[in-house]
């Protein structure tokens, strides 16, 4: 099963490589990993997406907790949560494709943020599946470049993952 795990880490040099190293050393799957400082500059928040059976995911959480720089670990997929990923996709937009791609962006509530005579850059935010769906919907051969942030997430409700 797919899990989205949020980790609060001390914002120390090398903290990211400790997490990345843990996954490679123990052979855990890692689909994506994003990290940035929080409103408290001494803390970073990392969101990682992983796959595995319950035993493996349980171990992943324990091993993450065991890292000395880890302050908190929270599995967002254990409760109601919101997942968002941002994508910028550059597409060939000439001739009849130009109007088609514009319509597609509107349907997905995406924004066109750069325009040339022959291309668009489309920005789209949503759950990863929505981004996948957009890529699938772009006619074959028109994609020039895809940049995805990897998912981030937050739990629903009034409780926060803070200290």
């Amino acid at each position, binding site marked *: 099963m797919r899990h989205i795990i949020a980790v609060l*880490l*001390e914002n120390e*040099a*090398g903290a990211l*490589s*400790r997490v990345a*190293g843990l996954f490679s*050393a123990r052979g855990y799957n890692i689909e994506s990993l994003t990290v940035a400082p929080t409103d408290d500059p001494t803390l970073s928040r990392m969101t990682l997406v992983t796959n595995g059976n319950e*035993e493996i995911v*349980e*171990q992943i959480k*324990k*091993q993450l*907790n*065991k890292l*000395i*720089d*880890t*302050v908190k670990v929270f599995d967002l997929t254990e409760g109601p949560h919101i997942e968002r990923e941002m994508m910028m996709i550059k597409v060939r937009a000439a001739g009849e494709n130009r109007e088609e791609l514009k319509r597609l962006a509107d349907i997905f509530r995406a924004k066109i943020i750069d325009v040339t005579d022959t291309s668009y850059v489309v920005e789209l935010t949503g759950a990863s599946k929505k981004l996948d769906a957009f890529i699938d919907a772009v006619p074959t051969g028109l994609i020039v470049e895809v940049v995805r942030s990897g998912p981030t997430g937050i739990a629903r409700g009034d409780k926060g993952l803070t*200290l």
Partner: protein
Amino acid sequence: MDMNGVDLSGAEIVVQALIDEGVEYVFGYPGGAVLHMYDALFKQDQVKHILVRHEQAAAHAADGYARATGRCGVCLVTSGPGATNAVTGIATAYMDSIPMVCISGQVPTPVIGSDAFQEVDTVGITRPCVKHNFLVKDVRDLATTLRKAFYIAMTGRPGPVVVDIPKDVTDPNIKIPYHYPREIQMRSYQPIERGHLGQIKRAVELMLQAKRPVLYTGGGVVLGEAAAQLTELARLTGFPLTSTLMGLGAYPMTDPQFIGMLGMHGTYEANMAMHETDVLIAIGARFDDRVTGKIEHFCPHAKIVHVDVDPSSISKNVRVDVPIVGQVASVLTDMLGLWKEQAPASTGRPVADWWAKIEEWRRVDCLHYDRHSDKIKPQFAVETLYQVTKGDLYLTSDVGQHQMFAAQFYPFDKPRRWINSGGLGTMGFGLPAAMGVQLAFPQAQVACISGEASILMCIQEMATCQQYKLPIKVVLLNNGYMGMVRQWQEFFYESRYSNSYVDALPDFVKLAESFGHVGMRVERPADLAAAMQEAFAMKDRFVFLDVVVDPTENVYPMIAAGKGQHEMHLPPSLSDRELA
């Protein structure tokens, strides 16, 4: 003298921090990046520096010191090759959860990343084999970082911590006021002390109902200083007790309730008891693959209680029914309290039948060997060592057959007496580890049991032993082979002894003598006891005892990799006997 508030250089801060931590010995080897620290060491006499002959030995010696004393071992190495040489020793300590602080020099901060002379990314290289590591880039962080390093190394599940210090951070000309924090609070690191009482209650209820219980104990009992509580629990419950390689001595091995080591080379009775048990109480043990054998066959009938200080050890390899996270000593104390409250109602518990079964297995005599051989059997050598030393010995070991024979045939009655590399299985560990032990206990009998392959991996340390007059006794079980490799090749590769014969061995007697030590060689069983007595009578000399043993002897019982606990090879001399 209280140095708080006094202006000190980074190098002086390091030394003062070691003094404030109560460090007796630093095992190290100088080099460019640590010269400021060596100069600061030179100017004081509270912390003694032991000059090893290879950085691997510095880490092993610090490790041996830590294992024997329960205190933190400390080593000091230079940048680049100094640090990489120490990595084997650091990884050894990591796998066995040994508290150690390793201080490494680093090239000056302005040239980090420029492939400078003797530069290596020490923090990067050691990351997967340390509990934590630090690169200190500012002298103002030095004291606090060192305090954190000792705190992290010693608390929770212990482990090695590397503190990498660039040369400019130890600059003797830059001085700042010294403040060494007494207490450390870390929001990201809060070791668990007490176990959950509800869980401990559940465990005790299971134990009260058990018909075929087994206590399975590991190195965590030794590390957690819980031998006394374990012994009381075993006595009160009357349960049979088996131990991993790392836990030997936490419960007296000469006691009849001890049913031997378990696992790959464990006893028949211990492994059969594991296979048949209905309630397994795992205490400070981590279900290592050398213990479990094939997981599908592991304790098929058992409800499992697991006490461990490290949550990630629980249900890692084997799913358990009652996990208890906490310090072993604290959990066992709570468990004893509950047992005493509840047990009187159920006296005359039915484990007598279980013991009868175990005694039946015991009668198989799985450690049987030929006592009438005209060659020295390695088992006989270990038994003789036990008799000569009367069980009062710190025994370090290298890795291989001799290690298993020692574990099987030298019954340790106290914790911290059996010192070996269990997790990483590091050949070359024994001799430098013995140096750490002997320095910690100058009056104690300290021996290193080894093989002729292992001993050559850190043989240079005979020079260190000479310099510091360490009266260690090396007991070399010399069979001319990498015995354990040879054994596997015999069993699983149709006796194709690929590169396991140690050709061109040195004359160990002359070698020892060339370092200024005493060398002895024994070839006949009848001469062995007298030779050992002579060696141990030389209380102020390092003696190298080269014992020529039967080259074809194998370690039995043996569970082949991938087999279940009940599928043991027994000694060939027993194979015609009907087994239970």
